[in-house]
């Protein structure tokens, strides 16, 4: 399943964001940030403990089932009193959750996490970005492997000159995606696809910020 991948902000940044805000209500999420161990029940407990040690008063805490879901508004309503006592909601969800909670609560929010990318867990504890949602999909010509996402330069016409033993020049822990694409197309007998000159990409397939309306 596709997840929103996050990491905790540095403690110094968090301390700065919470400066002058003494009473804190902490919110985690039972979905993506639980998987990435950045905002599940154990991380919320640890955050409460750290903040308490720093002299903050914790007015309450909550781990939402799915922070970005519309039901979040109803759940938050049940914690109204505890949240009202707080100067700030410290949110340990991805940025979608932060925005949803801000909308439904009307309270001051501070994110405890940075949202990195939309990706999936490809091995235990390892997360990879799989789609940048560019709106101009070329997977049909690249053996189902996305160079727009997985090439550090987003090259769509083959690899740069920096491939080293099948690894990317800027991160030896990452496969060169064009080596993967080459191998896949070779196995499929479709190497011809690499000869095609891909036209300049449409970076505005949907005008940023994205918004579409379908007829229903």
């Amino acid at each position, binding site marked *: 399943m596709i997840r929103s991948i996050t990491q905790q902000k540095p403690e110094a940044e968090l301390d700065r964001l919470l400066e002058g805000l003494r009473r804190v209500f902490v919110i985690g999420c039972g979905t993506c940030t639980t998987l990435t161990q950045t905002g599940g029940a154990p991380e919320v407990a640890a955050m409460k403990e750290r903040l308490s040690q720093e002299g903050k008063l914790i007015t309450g805490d909550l781990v939402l089932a799915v922070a970005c879901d519309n039901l979040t508004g109803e759940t938050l309503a049940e914690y109204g009193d505890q949240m009202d006592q707080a100067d700030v909601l410290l949110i340990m969800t991805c940025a979608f959750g932060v925005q949803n909670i801000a909308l439904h609560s009307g309270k001051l929010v501070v994110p405890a996490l940075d949202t990195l990318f939309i990706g999936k867990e490809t091995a235990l504890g390892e997360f990879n970005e799989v789609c940048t949602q560019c709106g101009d999909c070329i997977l049909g010509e690249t053996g189902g492997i996305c160079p727009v996402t997985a090439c*550090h*330069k*987003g*090259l*769509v*016409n*083959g*690899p*740069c*000159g*920096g*491939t*080293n*033993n*099948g690894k990317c*020049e*800027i991160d030896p822990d990452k496969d060169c995606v*064009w*080596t993967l694409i*080459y191998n896949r197309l070779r196995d499929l007998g479709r*190497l011809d696809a*690499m*000869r095609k*000159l*891909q*036209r*300049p*990409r449409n*970076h505005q397939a949907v005008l940023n910020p994205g918004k579409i309306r379908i007829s229903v």
Partner: protein
Amino acid sequence: MSTKTPSKLEKILDSGALAVTSECGPPRGSDPAAITRKAEMIKDYVDAINITDNQTSVTRLCSLAACIHLKQMGLEPVLQMVVRDRNRIAVQSDILGAASFDIYNMLCLSGDHQQFGDNPQGQNVFDLDSMQLLQTVRRMRDEGKFLGGDDIQRPPRMLVGAAANPFADPFEIRVPRLAKKIAAGAEFIQTQCIYNLEKFEEWMKLARDRGLHEKVHILAGVTPFKSAGMAKYMKNRVPGMDVPDDVVKRMSGVPKENQPQEGIDICVETITRLQECEGVRGFHIMAIEWEEKVPEIVERSGLYPRPQV
């Protein structure tokens, strides 16, 4: 390959003579003497001088301004342009800017990732890739059209080049990639620095098998080692670089004070051997911060004097 531009480099390549190019890296400051001094050292020994474009993603004086300094000295610059820092509007605008100063050569590159440089947190652009940059310049020159389709008044007249790395892997992709760059519009190629001559010659043979050497002018890239340490660094740290063990051993095998001369000797031997390699149409000498050695390399390789065109 009939002459299409006023480029001196093109005339020399078309004449059948071996071309010699070199490069100057602009300074990390605004002193024009840093460029003109380097150019003075090499100007009589090369046909054209590449100006690098914020190489290794370290911020420097811009390639276009440095090219203009060369042009004002009456020299022949090769504008290097990377797509890392410019979207398609800026790319086309800078091409027109170069054309307005009658810069007649351009090398189209992707550019090193900004991770390597002094602004690793900067946004990389890569709106176009190097193939699409080649197509863009050719379209602007040959059709007199912008990417958006509008007509250009006084279109650019540039000889269009690309880089090729015969050594990055997978090896079997490298000649097809050369073919793709030619299809995209490359008229000359400057290769990655060559130390593994067998592998380069194999790549050239595969290129010849497809007739590519008749469709593009291939300039073999060479860089003299200043020291055994540099050879080891290039072998181990520079991505896509192929420095065989025996070359490192040869550099390490001479006393430190003789290593620079050994590096020059290897470079001259490489050029001498590759002059015999069918399809090699010239040499691109990248003497990194060692421009003063270019005359010696050119002379000892039998490539001096340079043809007058």
